[in-house]
């Protein structure tokens, strides 16, 4: 919790003043029974009307000051809670943005989102409530006990026993219920999972006629959740009646000993009334305290989850002074015995890959699904670390810290998943280069065959909805290609980014890009997409089983031939070889 606590520092005054004012408010509340006792013993007994009026005026004044202090307390607590959570959200977002591809894969999008939203909200509520109540409730409970001391040790002792018994009961019920609540929460997650799957997988489930069995699974989970909830609810329901009964027993005990003392002339009737009123205040505060503990426990759990993210170190390995090992007179891009794996201990995604690429060359990367194509191209901008060997651009290892920003600026990536962001088309294209003019944007769009998409939507200012929902897959792909071209990249990486394009568009796209003379990597499933490349790398299960031109590979590489013929009619077999 250390890290979370450091966010409170800028709000240390608010965090101190909040509880302090709450304490003052509580003090006035505790004084009320004394005033009432005075009214009974001095005012009424002496038939002194003006005394009664004054005493009641004091009660009213207590109420007024209590109000002012309460407002101040709420203000400072809210200020601290919202300030702290805003600070945490800010840093959390920054941290998440700094994570490496590997970290992102590992953590998952859903987790990151819940940390940013639900967990921070819970923490905020927890801090707010904590600042308001953590002093107040114990203060009233123990304050009442101390006040009882004003009437002697006997009532003080009774208070102590009653408080202890009530606290044990409340605490015991809480102790039993907390893990049960956690369990039911897990059952709720199951219900959530069912619901989510039946939406995201609607097509698949319906195609396989699984509606009925999915419903049974849901009903079962829903029923389990319900049973769990009823069970916990039943246990939690004991708290109030039990504490109520115990408290009344305590009051009987208090009044009985009180009666003895009044009879013996030790106490007055007013004192008994005061004790009775004081005792009445304990129960509510104890229950509030128990609820506070639950809320704070939940907030603390959220807090430690948040802290885990804040403490994450981006896993990308950056080396200082890598330039010193610069290899002059080397081809533009060099893969030198490169291996990569997705997770430590996991299987290799790439094994011992070596090749060289000269400036301006077009490189095709082809292979079966899951053969490591995407991993290979993602190594060039250093999105992932290699587990062996080196990737060098301009003779410098891509792990170089000094080169990192420069490297990424020069590379234009079109990811497999075509993704646009809420805003306008112009805003999306400007991601490529912030100072590009409209003419440059349209030129890039023309190259990417996206001009008609933009015009069809009504120009560069056409709105893009969240995630680019208002564009089709093919339209999105063309715009993401345009976005990469806007930056005039020295290296262009097209990761299977024409999969949603029809053949004709794909061909003219490749032709136009070829004219640019940019070093280009084309990842593809179809041999037609890479046929004209200067160099084709054929991957199979993470190994390079062939590197060469189309014609060379047709002669030397069995895997390449297989891919080729699977996509063309068998009759061509004889002719092509």
């Amino acid at each position, binding site marked *: 919790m250390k890290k979370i606590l450091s966010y409170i520092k800028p709000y240390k005054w608010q965090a101190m003043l909040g509880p302090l004012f709450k304490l003052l408010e509580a003090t006035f509340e505790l004084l009320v029974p004394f005033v009432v006792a005075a*009214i009974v013993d001095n005012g*009424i007994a002496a038939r002194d*009307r003006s005394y*009664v009026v004054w*005493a009641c005026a004091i*009660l009213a004044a207590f*109420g007024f000051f209590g109000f002012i202090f309460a*407002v101040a307390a*709420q203000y400072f607590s*809210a200020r601290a809670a919202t300030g702290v*959570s*805003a600070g945490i959200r*800010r840093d959390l977002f920054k941290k*998440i*943005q700094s994570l490496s591809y590997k970290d*992102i*894969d590992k953590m*998952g*999008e*859903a987790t990151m*989102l819940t940390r940013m*939203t639900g967990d921070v909200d819970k923490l905020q509520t927890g801090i707010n409530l904590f600042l308001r109540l953590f002093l107040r409730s114990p203060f009233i409970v123990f304050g009442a006990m101390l006040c009882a001391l004003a009437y002697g040790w006997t009532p003080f002792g009774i208070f102590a026993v009653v408080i202890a018994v009530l606290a044990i009961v409340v605490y015991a019920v809480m102790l039993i219920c907390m893990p049960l609540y956690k369990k039911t929460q897990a059952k709720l997650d199951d219900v*959530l999972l069912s619901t*989510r799957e039946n*939406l995201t997988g*609607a097509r698949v489930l*319906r*195609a*396989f*006629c699984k509606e009925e069995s999915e419903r049974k699974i*849901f009903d079962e989970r829903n*029923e389990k959740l319900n049973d769990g909830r009823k069970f916990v*609810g039943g246990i939690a329901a004991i708290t109030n009646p039990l504490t109520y*009964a115990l408290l009344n*027993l305590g009051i*009987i005990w208090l*009044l*009985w000993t*009180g*009666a003895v003392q*009044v*009879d013996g002339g030790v106490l007055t*009737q007013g004192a008994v009334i005061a004790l009775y*009123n004081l005792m009445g205040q304990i129960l509510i505060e104890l229950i509030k305290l128990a609820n506070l503990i639950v809320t704070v426990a939940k907030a603390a759990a959220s807090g430690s989850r948040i802290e885990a993210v804040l403490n994450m170190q981006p896993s990308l390995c950056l080396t200082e002074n890598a330039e010193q090992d610069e290899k002059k007179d080397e081809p533009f891009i060099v893969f030198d015995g490169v291996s990569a794996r997705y997770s430590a201990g*996991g*299987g290799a995604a790439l094994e011992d890959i070596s090749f060289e690429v000269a400036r301006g060359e077009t490189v095709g990367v082809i292979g*079966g*699904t*899951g*053969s490591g194509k995407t991993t290979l191209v993602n190594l060039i901008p250093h999105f992932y670390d290699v587990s062996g060997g080196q990737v060098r651009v301009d003779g410098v290892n891509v792990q170089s810290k000094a080169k990192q920003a420069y490297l*990424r*600026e020069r590379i234009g*990536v079109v990811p497999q998943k075509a*993704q646009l962001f809420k805003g306008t088309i112009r805003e999306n294209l400007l991601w490529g280069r*912030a100072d590009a003019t409209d003419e440059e944007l349209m030129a890039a769009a023309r190259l990417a065959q996206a001009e008609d998409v933009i015009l069809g939507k009504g120009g560069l200012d056409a709105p893009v909805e*969240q*995630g680019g929902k208002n564009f089709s897959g093919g339209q999105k792909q063309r715009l993401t290609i345009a976005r990469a071209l806007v*930056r005039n990249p020295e290296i262009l990486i097209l990761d299977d980014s024409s999969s949603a*394009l029809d053949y*004709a568009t794909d061909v003219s796209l490749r032709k136009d890009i070829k004219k640019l003379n940019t070093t280009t990597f084309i990842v593809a499933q179809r041999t037609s997409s890479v046929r004209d490349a200067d160099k084709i790398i054929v991957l199979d299960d993470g190994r390079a089983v062939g590197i060469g031109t189309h014609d060379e590979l047709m002669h030397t590489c069995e895997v390449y031939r297989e891919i080729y013929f699977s996509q063309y009619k068998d009759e061509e077999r004889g002719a092509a070889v």
Partner: protein
Amino acid sequence: MTTMTTPSVKKQSTLRRVLQYVGRYPVSLLGTIVFAVVTVAATLCVPVFFGNAVDHIVGKGAVDWKGVRVCFIEVGVAAAVAALSQWLLSLCNNRISCNVVRDIRKDAFDKIGKLPLQYIDTHPHGDTVSRVVADADQFSDGLLMGFTQFFTGVMTILGTVAFMLVTNWKIGLVVVIVSPASLMVAKFVTSHTHKFFVEQTATRGEQTAFVEEAISGLKTTQAFAHEDENEEKFNEINARLEKSSMNAIFYSSLTNPSTRFINNLVYALVAMLGGFAVMGGGFAVHGFTVGGLTKFLSYANQYTKPFNEITGVITELKSAFASAARIFELIDEREEIPDTGNSVLGAERKVAGDVILKNVDFSYDKTRKLIENLSLDVRQGQRIAIVGRTGSGKTTLINLLMRFYDVDGGQVCVDGKDVRDVTRRSLRENYGMVLQETWLKNATVRENLKLGAPSATDEEMIAAAKAAHAHSFIKRMEKGYDTVLGAGGGLSEGHKQLL
């Protein structure tokens, strides 16, 4: 689109529907009412008996022991009854709220299974999930709180007023006249804080949407070094959220202190008038003693507390009903047209696989035409490839064949039967397809592969995996076929497609 109705009409019908669900549990409902009455009555008796006891403890040597003892026995009985019935009351409430939510969830989920794909394709999944999960929970909490506190709160107020009027009708009357001030203050605060809550919710929604997009596009963001711009935008929204939550939290937290303030004033007033009454002045009523004043004061306390609670409950109930309305909206969605006729494809003989499209018209957005007057005649065993430009309707054709969508005009026939005349189940069972999307269930590899044919043996499954070139990478996974595929799951798109 739903038709616009005035909010009050909508709320009315939401309330009525909630009551219909609640009405399914008449025994618990009756229990709730009976136990609430008993609890409140018994609870209210306790201070009376204590007050009487105080009257028997007058001073030195003036303690009526017999009277005190009788009073304590009365307290004991009343407290025991109150505790017991309160417990039973909680059990009834708990039962009702849990079961009602379970029923509503069930109905909502059943609906999801019957929704046309059009709805699923056009509505964000997260929103529907949050209706079934978060809204249902919110509703459950609100309902429970409503039942336990609203009901007993109102009863307590009525009971206390009655007791006060009986004990000293003059002071009682004063209290009744003054106390609505507390409600008015509470109402004033809530009505003025509502706009802050609306603002907070809107800003929070905006931020969540932004974060969602930023996270799902994180890799792209990094590839384009766009982190700083994103951060700037985030911080701008974040600052607004901080301000609006501050307003919402602070202003709404004024309700309690201000009602408590009014209540304290009422308390002081009662103390004063009560003091006068005991001394025998204008407010005196026969038999009003110091013990009577004790009772009165503890009533004044008890009487005002429910006001606090009720205002809190009303806010809670409001959002509970808003949540309920959102779930009902989902339950009321138009369903997929039910299977007409029970005709089962392939009931008499094996399906041959003749597919005929007659003058088919179809479009998703009725203002933009997509497929027009398409006719096709495919015979058993023919292999058909569907080719076309992006967005020309290739996937759409599959959607129509599988009957994920219905044609706007014309007919799709399989084996001479209109697909609308056979059950969807029998139709779909006769297709084998590889969908464009690569959706996998959150379960083991084995369960996912057997989704198509639950009765397949492990050997058959491995054979299929080998045919799809998936066997080799499955073997390399941590636990092979028993690896659980989680959200994200660490599988590449390519691996998913193979599965």
